[in-house]
C-alpha cells in the first residue's frame, strides 16, 4: 500500500503568553494517511501543545499545519477529527449515552442515525449497557476513558487523536483499546497517539516521534532493527553452566552481564547481534523458554536521551 502524507507540519512554533521558552520550536513532521503515529517525550516536552495545535485549539506563532491539503481551521477538516483528551472533564449531570449523542450531533450526524450510532460506539468500547444511562460523574476512571473513546469514534473520524487513552484502564480495557486501534488502522484511520506507556506505543505505532524541549529529537520506526546496544534477558530451560554462557557470548561479541537461577542477561551491540546470540545459544545446546529485552526500544531511547540531557 502506498502511503501519502495526510498531515504535514512545517516549522511549527508556539510560545505561550508570558513564557520565555517556546513550547514548540520549529517542529517538522509528516504523518501518512492510515499511519499510527506515536508521540513520546518527558513531561513538558510539548506533546499536548502539539496535539492542541493539530486540533486547532491553539494557534501557532509560526509555521503551518496542513491536513489533506487544508488548514486545521477548515470545518471540513474538523469534521474528520476524533479526540480523546488527557484530562477527562465532562458535565457531571450528563449520562454516558447523552454525552455520546451530543457529540454525534456536534459531528454533524443525523437524528435518525443517532441511537444506532451511539449504541454501536458504546458497544465497541466495551462499556457495559447498565452504565450507559448512569451519570458520568459516577463513572470510574476506566469507564470515563471508554466513554471518551466512544465520543471520539463518533462520526467515523479519519484522524483520531488520542492523548493517554489507556491511562487508568484495567488490562482488558487496554487490550480492547489496542484492538480498536488495530481495527481502525486496518480501515485506514490515521491515529496520533500521545502516551507515556512506551510498551504500548512500541506495539501499536508505525512511527514514533520523540519530543524534548519543544523539538522533535528523533523519529523511530519500531519495526526496523535498532542499532543501539541493549540488554536481553533469557529464561533458560534446565541447568546451564555460567562458563558455557560466557563462551557462547564471546562467539558473537556479546557479554554476559547477569546470571541467576534459570536466567541470564546478555549485553548485545544491536538487534542483529541479539539474533546471532539466540542462534548461537541454540546451536550450543542452550535451550531457553523466552528472550525479552530488559528495556524495550523506546524505553532505551527515552532513557538514553534523559542521560544525555543531564
Amino acid at each position, binding site marked *: 500500500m502506498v502511503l501519502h502524507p495526510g498531515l504535514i507540519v512545517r516549522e511549527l512554533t508556539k510560545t*505561550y*503568553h508570558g*513564557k520565555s521558552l517556546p*513550547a514548540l520550536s520549529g517542529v517538522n513532521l509528516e504523518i501518512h494517511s492510515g499511519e499510527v503515529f506515536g508521540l513520546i517525550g518527558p*513531561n*513538558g516536552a*510539548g506533546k*499536548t*501543545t502539539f496535539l*492542541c495545535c493539530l*486540533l*486547532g*485549539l*491553539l*494557534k501557532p506563532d509560526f509555521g503551518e499545519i496542513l491536513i489533506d491539503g487544508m488548514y486545521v481551521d477548515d*470545518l*471540513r477538516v*474538523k*469534521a474528520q*477529527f476524533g*479526540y480523546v*483528551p*488527557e*484530562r477527562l*472533564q*465532562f*458535565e*457531571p*449531570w*450528563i449520562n454516558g449515552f447523552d454525552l455520546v449523542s*451530543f*457529540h454525534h*450531533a*456536534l*459531528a*454533524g450526524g443525523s437524528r435518525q442515525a443517532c441511537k444506532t450510532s451511539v449504541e454501536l460506539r458504546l458497544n465497541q468500547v466495551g462499556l457495559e449497557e447498565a452504565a450507559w444511562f448512569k451519570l458520568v460523574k459516577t463513572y470510574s476512571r476506566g469507564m470515563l476513558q471508554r466513554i471518551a473513546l466512544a*465520543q471520539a469514534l463518533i462520526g467515523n473520524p479519519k484522524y483520531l*487523536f488520542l*492523548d493517554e487513552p489507556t491511562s487508568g484502564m484495567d488490562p482488558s480495557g487496554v487490550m480492547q483499546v489496542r484492538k480498536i486501534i488495530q481495527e481502525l488502522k486496518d480501515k485506514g484511520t490515521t491515529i496520533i497517539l500521545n502516551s507515556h506507556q512506551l510498551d504500548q506505543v512500541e506495539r501499536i505505532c508505525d512511527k514514533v516521534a520523540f519530543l524534548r524541549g519543544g523539538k522533535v529529537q528523533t523519529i523511530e520506526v519500531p519495526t526496523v532493527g535498532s542499532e543501539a546496544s541493549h540488554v536481553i534477558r533469557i529464561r533458560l530451560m534446565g541447568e546451564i553452566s555460567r562458563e558455557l554462557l560466557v563462551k557462547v557470548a564471546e562467539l558473537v561479541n556479546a557479554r554476559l552481564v547477569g546470571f541467576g537461577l534459570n536466567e541470564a542477561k546478555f549485553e548485545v551491540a544491536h538487534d542483529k547481534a541479539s539474533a546471532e546470540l539466540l542462534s548461537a545459544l541454540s546451536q550450543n545446546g542452550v535451550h531457553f523458554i523466552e528472550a525479552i529485552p530488559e528495556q524495550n526500544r523506546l524505553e532505551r531511547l527515552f532513557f538514553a536521551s534523559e542521560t544525555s540531557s543531564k
Partner: protein
Amino acid sequence: MIFLFFYTLKQIFHQRIRMYIVIVFFTYELFEIYAEGTLGSFTFNASFMAIWFTWILGAGLIGRDVSTGTLHLLLTRPIIRYRYVLVKWFALSFLATTICWLNFFLGIGIIRIFQGESIVTHVLLGEMINVLIYSFGTASLVAAFSSLLPGHGDLGLWFSLFLIFQGAIQLLIYLKIYATMFVKVGLEILLPGYNFVDYNSGKLSEILAKWSGFDMYLFGLAWLAIMLVYLSLACWALNRKELSYGSH
C-alpha cells in the same frame, strides 16, 4: 445548532443552587403582587428582574465551559466559535425572557383574580418588550464578560465595574457636577436596556408624547449597538483563547 441550544438550557437547569435562587425571586415577586396589589411597583420589578434572572442563570455562561474543559472538546468538532457564542447568548436570553414573562403573567393573573383590576394593553405589551430588551441586552454583556474571564469571573467583573461607576456618580454629585449623559451612558453600558420606557407612567398618548420618535429610535439603536459590541467582544475573546490541556 439546536442541540447546542438545548444543551445550554440543560447546563443551566442542572445548576441547582441557581434554580433555587430563581424560584425564590420568582415566588417573592408573586407574593409582593398579592400583598401590594399595585401594578406600579410590579411592572417596574418585572422588567428589572430580567437583569437579575439573566445574571443568576447565566453567570459563567462561557467561562465555565472553559474552566471545566467542556469547550476544548466541543471545539474539536466542526463548529464555528462565533456560532457557539451566539447560541449560548440566545439560549440564556430565551430562558431569562421566558421565566420573566411567566412571572409577569402569573402576577397579572393574581391581580385580576384577587384585586379585580384590569390590565391596560399597552402596559402589558410594553412590559413584555422591556423584559425582552433587558434579557437580551444583559445576556450579551454576560457573554462578553464570560468570554474574557474563566469560571464566574464575569459576575465579579460586572459587580466591580458597577461599584466603580456608582462611586464615580457619588463623586460627581459631591463635586456638584451633574453629568446626566455620563450616568445614562454608563447605565446603558452596564445595564443594557436600562433607559427603558415606563409604560405604567400614564396613558399611552402621554408616554409617547414624552418620547419623541427620534428618542425612541436613538434608544433602540443604542441598545442594538451595545449588544452588537458585546457579542463581537465575546467572539473576539473566544477566538483568541488558548485552549490547551498542556502543563504550561
